[in-house]
């Protein structure tokens, strides 16, 4: 028996024991569907009957014939580029505000988290639409100050920003993750810094920020992937309009795959997206050694 426990405690063995659930899950639940969808990308699969192999036809159609493909790709690209930085800064800022321990903080945290709890529900979609409606509250404020009412939901140049606003407004989960990270910074570090006469701003830049870079890194990856896969706000609020100016890549993909049952084409689109997201993620990972600080690795 002793021998077994010794073998089990070898680092190589213990490593596999710990990550075993993930490996099993990967093989049982993910590998098969994952590669099935890769196979389907080269077929004309329409869900209702068996797929036929058509080679690169889906990709040809995607790059050269589908007039919405590049359009939706650039929209999503722009969306991610604008939303991710703003959302990260905003949620970090709010997390800092809420890290302060007062009796009311629990209530505040809940208040700031609720928009994310409500997620992609009909209620959020409808209130957001109402807020920015031509005769809605925001335009009421604008006209009260002598401005001209804006067609927020019907101006191809503006509507995307309304949806970006919604995405930023639902910053709850990244805020929560930042909050946990800030809370994880040992109080003794702060105390030592205060003794040395460091103000809150110095403490943020010298202690908190370096300590939470691993989590900043996580949120950056998470939000980037999330932004490229954004779906709900466009699907529920604008349906991709006006004039296709908010047709996200994922919405276009969904319309193809499920409204038109062109699952083969949808799979091809998904795999192209995987490559794009993969490239971005790899870039972020590459850069991380320069700015992410791991206490455990002393760098």
């Amino acid at each position: 028996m002793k021998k077994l426990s010794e073998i089990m405690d070898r680092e190589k063995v213990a490593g596999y024991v710990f990550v075993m659930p993930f490996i099993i899950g990967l093989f049982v639940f993910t590998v098969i569907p994952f590669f099935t969808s890769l196979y389907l990308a080269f077929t004309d699969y329409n869900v209702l009957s068996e797929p036929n192999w058509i080679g690169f036809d889906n990709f040809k159609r995607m790059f050269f014939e589908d007039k919405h493909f590049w359009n939706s790709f650039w929209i999503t690209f722009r969306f991610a580029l604008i939303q991710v930085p703003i959302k990260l800064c905003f949620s970090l800022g709010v997390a800092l505000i809420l890290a302060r321990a007062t009796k009311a903080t629990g209530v505040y945290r809940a208040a700031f988290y609720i928009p994310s709890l409500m997620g992609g529900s009909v209620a959020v979609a409808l209130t957001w639409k109402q807020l920015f409606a031509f005769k809605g509250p925001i335009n009421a404020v604008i006209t009260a100050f002598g401005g001209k009412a804006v067609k927020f939901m019907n101006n191809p140049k503006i509507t995307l920003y309304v949806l970006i606003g919604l995405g930023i407004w639902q910053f709850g989960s990244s805020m929560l993750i930042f909050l946990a990270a800030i809370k994880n910074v040992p109080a003794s570090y702060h105390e030592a810094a205060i003794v040395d006469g460091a103000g809150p701003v110095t403490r943020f830049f010298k202690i908190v920020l370096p300590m939470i870079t691993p989590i900043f890194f996580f949120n950056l990856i998470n939000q980037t992937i999330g932004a490229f896969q954004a779906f709900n706000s466009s699907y529920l609020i604008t349906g991709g309009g006006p004039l296709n100016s908010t047709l996200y890549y994922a919405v276009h993909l969904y319309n193809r795959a499920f409204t038109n049952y062109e699952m083969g084409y949808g799979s091809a689109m998904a795999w192209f997206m995987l490559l794009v997201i993969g490239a971005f993620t790899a870039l972020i990972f590459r850069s991380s050694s320069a700015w992410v600080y791991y206490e455990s690795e002393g760098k």
Partner: protein
Amino acid sequence: MTATTAKVKKYRSMRRAKIRSTIIYHVLVTMMSFLMLYPLFWMVSSSFKPNTEIFVNVTSLIPIDFTMENYVTGWKGFAELSFGVFFKNSILVAVIATIGSTFSAAVCAFGFARLRFPGRNIWFVAMIITMMLPGQVMMIPRFVLFNEMGWVGTFLPLTVPAFFGGAFDIFLVMQFIRGIPRDMDEAARIDGCSWYGIFFYIIIPMIVPALVTVAVLTFIGSWGDFMGSLLYLNKPKYYTSAYALKLFADAAFTDYGATFAMSTLSLIPILTIFFFFQKNLVEGISIQGLKG
């Protein structure tokens, strides 16, 4: 003006400044909270308006014609299955999924973050890649798979995968563990503690805030997931509340009143969970204090 009065004055003005900044803090945060909460207030107030009023009296948060009717109709549910049934199913599914994913995320993250074993990087990259494929195209192959396994029509597809570690959760917990200095586990290793001991007695207590975060996010995610329930559950008595909320909508007509009423009710469990866990989030720091 003597030196003492100047000191007293300075002390008083500092205290006043502190009080002032506290007041400004609370006023600002309360105002922001209200902005954040506006859609919630709108939904709750709409749930007390008759259907004919919801979109007519749209800007006022106070119903003209206050009614509980939406709650009565909504709770009635569908064909003798009240919303209570759907809530019970949701709670069962969400609790099991939460336990599963929190536990498996902790275990796998420890393996990836602390132990060196051959192939570690390959598995890690595989994990990151699985986060990148848009879920829509996995739906049908996954359904076929679960169907082959005979799981369709049960809660298994909604709960069992959680026990095998979600990529996002593992990655998140990993980042927390990598932020913890190694000195304690090295000391414990020298004292003859096994890797399993280190995991349970050293690492787990230190990552409580991270685990709480994973738990809260999983619970909320599972609670709001209607796609899984739409695809995998067949018998109405197994439907979860997120899916049941959609059943008020037909092509032409949606009972918004009942939808909002039941949406309001379905926020109660997640808010409870949030408040409950938030206490642990704070307790997490006191254990954390041991470390320094």
